[in-house]
Structure formats: structure tokens, C-alpha cells
């Protein structure tokens, strides 16, 4: 645990030391604001909730989360620091978990900075704050899922652009499977795949949270999803160490 926290602390320090953190947070807040208030028809809906806000979160994360994770391993490999890091008395799993934890804490911090949205709806009406809280928990888990995918993709290459594109592509796969167009197409073309696609859709699970439902099933799903990708991440790190 100590090793994980040390790696996480170092990683977070490097976000703050470089403009990555500031750029990410500003862009995230601006895009989220524009989408919610303009495209999302926040005022037109005349309802005191954050559904418009949460509906856009998966798509904003889809683009921004791989931008955080692309450097996690690709940069270590390009600089050669991976050789220094992994010859310290740390296991690969500790390094993988530490880096993931840092990225997750950072994403959660960015999410918490959207608190003005919560204040706004509470000022304008009386929303179901329980549902909003559930939505935030879901958003954090969704971010964790995308981060785990992005981190694993970053371990495959030394090129950050490739890591980013792979990350977006794989996250996209797990995001679109919740959309009726895709599931309808899959059910008619490959019914077996449609069942699987619905099961692994992270966005569909997230939508449950937005409706205010925190189910044990969904929590177990996210935990296993993140665990699976972090396990793959560790395997990728080990495998690429050899060549």
C-alpha cells in the first residue's frame, strides 16, 4: 500500500508541476458548462436536476480521460524512467495501481470543481440531491473505467499520440454499446454479441446512477471492470519490459 501511495503522490505532483492539470480542468469545466447550459437545454427543461449535465459527461470523459492517461506509461517508456521506476523495490502492480490512483484522484477533483452546477440547481429549485450525489458517484466510477482502459493502452506504446487514439477508440467501444442504434443493429446482425455488449456497457450502468439508483450490482460491475483493465495494464507493462 505504501508503494502505491508513493507512486500516486509522485504522479500527482507531476500533474501540478506541468500545465496538464490546469489545462485539463479549465477545458473540462468550460466544455461541461457550454454543453449543459446551451446544448443540454438546462433552462428550457424547466426542471431542477442535473440530467443534462450528466448526459454529456460520458462524451466529455471519452475525449479528456485518454488525454490524462496517454502519458502514464508511454512517457515513462520514452524517457526511459520506466527502467528506473521498475528497478526500485516496487512491484509492477504497485506502480500500475499508484498511477491509476493518481489519475483517478485528479479526475474526481475535476468533478468536484463542478459544484457550481449543484449550487445553481439548488438556487433555482429544489432538486433531488440524493440523485445528484448518485450521479456524481457514477461519474467518478465512469471516469475510473475510462482511466483504467486508457492506462492499459498507454502501457502498449512509447508514443503518446498512439496511446491517446487507442484509449479513445477502446473507451468509445464501451460507451456506444449503450445506445439503441448500436444495440438494435447488433441484435439483428449478431444477437450473441448484443447480449454481451449490453452487459459490458459502462455508460448504461452510469445512467442507472444518474436516475438516482446505486445498486450493488453496478458497483460490483465497475469494480470488476476497472480491476480487469488494471490487470491487463500490469500484463502489458510486464510484457513490454521484455523487448
Amino acid at each position: 500500500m505504501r508503494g502505491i501511495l508513493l507512486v500516486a503522490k509522485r504522479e500527482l505532483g507531476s500533474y501540478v508541476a506541468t500545465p496538464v492539470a490546469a489545462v485539463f480542468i479549465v477545458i473540462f469545466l468550460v466544455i461541461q458548462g457550454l454543453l449543459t447550459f446551451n446544448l443540454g437545454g438546462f433552462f428550457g427543461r424547466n426542471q431542477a436536476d442535473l440530467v443534462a449535465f450528466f448526459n454529456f459527461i460520458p462524451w466529455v470523459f471519452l475525449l479528456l480521460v485518454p488525454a490524462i492517461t496517454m502519458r502514464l506509461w508511454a512517457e515513462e517508456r520514452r524517457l526511459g524512467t520506466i527502467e528506473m521506476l521498475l528497478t526500485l523495490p516496487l512491484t509492477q502492480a504497485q506502480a500500475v495501481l499508484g498511477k491509476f490512483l493518481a489519475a483517478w484522484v485528479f479526475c474526481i477533483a475535476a468533478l468536484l470543481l463542478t459544484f457550481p452546477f449543484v449550487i445553481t440547481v439548488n438556487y433555482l429549485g429544489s432538486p433531488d440531491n440524493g440523485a445528484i450525489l448518485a450521479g456524481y458517484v457514477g461519474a467518478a466510477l465512469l471516469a475510473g473505467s475510462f482511466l483504467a482502459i486508457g492506462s492499459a493502452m498507454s502501457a502498449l506504446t512509447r508514443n503518446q499520440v498512439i496511446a491517446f487514439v487507442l484509449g479513445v477508440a477502446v473507451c468509445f467501444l464501451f460507451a456506444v454499446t449503450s445506445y439503441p442504434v448500436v444495440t438494435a443493429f447488433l441484435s439483428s446482425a449478431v444477437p450473441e454479441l448484443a447480449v454481451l455488449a449490453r452487459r459490458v456497457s459502462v455508460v448504461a450502468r452510469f445512467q442507472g446512477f444518474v436516475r438516482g439508483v446505486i445498486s450493488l450490482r453496478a458497483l460490483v460491475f465497475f469494480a470488476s471492470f476497472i480491476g480487469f483493465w488494471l490487470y491487463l495494464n500490469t500484463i502489458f507493462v510486464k510484457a513490454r519490459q521484455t523487448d
Partner: protein
Amino acid sequence: MTALVEIEGLTKRFGSFTAVDRLSFTVARGEVLGFLGPNGAGKSTTMRMLAGFMEPTEGTARIMGHDVRRDGLAARRELGFLPEGAPTYPEMTVSGFLSFAAAVRGYSGRERAVRVSAAMDLTGLEGVRLQPVETLSKGFKRRVGLAQALLHNPPVLILDEPTDGLDPNQKHEVRILISRMAPHKAIIVSTHILEEVDAVCTRAIIIAAGRIVADATPAALAKMHPSGKLDEVFRALTHPTSTSAAATRAAA
């Protein structure tokens, strides 16, 4: 003399290419082993396997009795490793980076501060302790890597080209540092600079195409060529078609 590093049949293949071919040797306390060979001979690959960064295809190595394959974590605790090119996180400050390494090595509080400042003292880094690594010159960056390897005063040191890119004064300082630590440790140093072998090493191994072609004291090695020069011997052993090869064969 007890062997702190034992290498047994260490082999690394990349596809059909054999980078390191059944290497076996031991290094005892008090020895400074010069690890020589042309580029691509397998020096860095061997060192990476010893440091637990690469998994050997066959064979194994032990650091202080800990098998690098079965008990890698324990082996790495006993080891100070300077990777090729001395990579460090560019945005971190010197003391920040060394503190991180010391914390991972299990030091905390006052002891960590003492370790970090001792390592900076040894490598002459106090003046730049709060500077980000990316703003440092090549020589200073190498010293940061060296300080990281020395932090925990390990019994075994593996240094991949520790003086590469340093100016003559800095090279001299690093050599003095290595000589001063030598009696208490087993040290493996890879280098291209043959006078360095004369200056600091008690023993030299020359490898070519992943195999040991010579293992002797620097003085004994030099005698293998009539000129008595190490670089002639090096050329003869690693580039057998050269003119020095014939002379070496004649002398032997």
C-alpha cells in the same frame, strides 16, 4: 571473498537473436568489475536482467543470495542501479526525486532527509537541490541518477556507463567516488572508456556477441597484446579480423 553477485547461465534471446549467451560469473565484495564490449554486445541487456528489469530467457542471477527471478523484490533492495542514460523525471526537483526514491526504499522522516542529503553530498548536488532535473546539464543529470543508486548504501552497485557525457573533471570525481566505495561493495561498471578500466577496475570482463571473451585483471589483459595497450586487446578480441588480432595471437 564472498560472492555478492552470482550469474549462472544467464541468457536473453529476442526472437532468433541471442543478445546474451549463457553468461556465468561472480563478483565478490571489494571487486570493481569493468564490463566491456562493443555496442550491441549485450552489456546493457545483462545489467537490465541483473536489475530485474528484464526477464532472462534462461539461467538466473543472485544478488546477495536473492534470486532475481524468484525473489526480485529482495534482490532489488540490495542493489543500486544506474540505468543507461541515467533517466530521471524531468519536472521533479533533484531533492524531490531523491526523496521519492528514498521513500520507495522504505526511509521516512528524518532518516530520509539524512539519506538524501548524504547522497547529494557524495555526488556534489547540494547546489542544485531545488532545481528541476530538466534544467540541469548532462553531467548533473548523470549525478542525480548516481545519487539515486547510492541512496541506500547498497552492497551491490550496477552502473551502466556512469561517466558517459561527463567532462574530464566530473569523470575523475566519479572514478574517485567508485574507488572509495569499492572495498565495501561489489561494483559492476560498464564503460567504453578503456583508461577508466585501468583507473578503477580490479577486474575486467570483455563480452562480444553475448559471450565472455576475456576475464582477467586489467594488467593481465593488457599483456595479451605486444603493445601492452588495452584498446588493442579490446579490438583484437571483439573485432577478430583487425590487425591487432594477429599480434595478440602471436603474443599469446
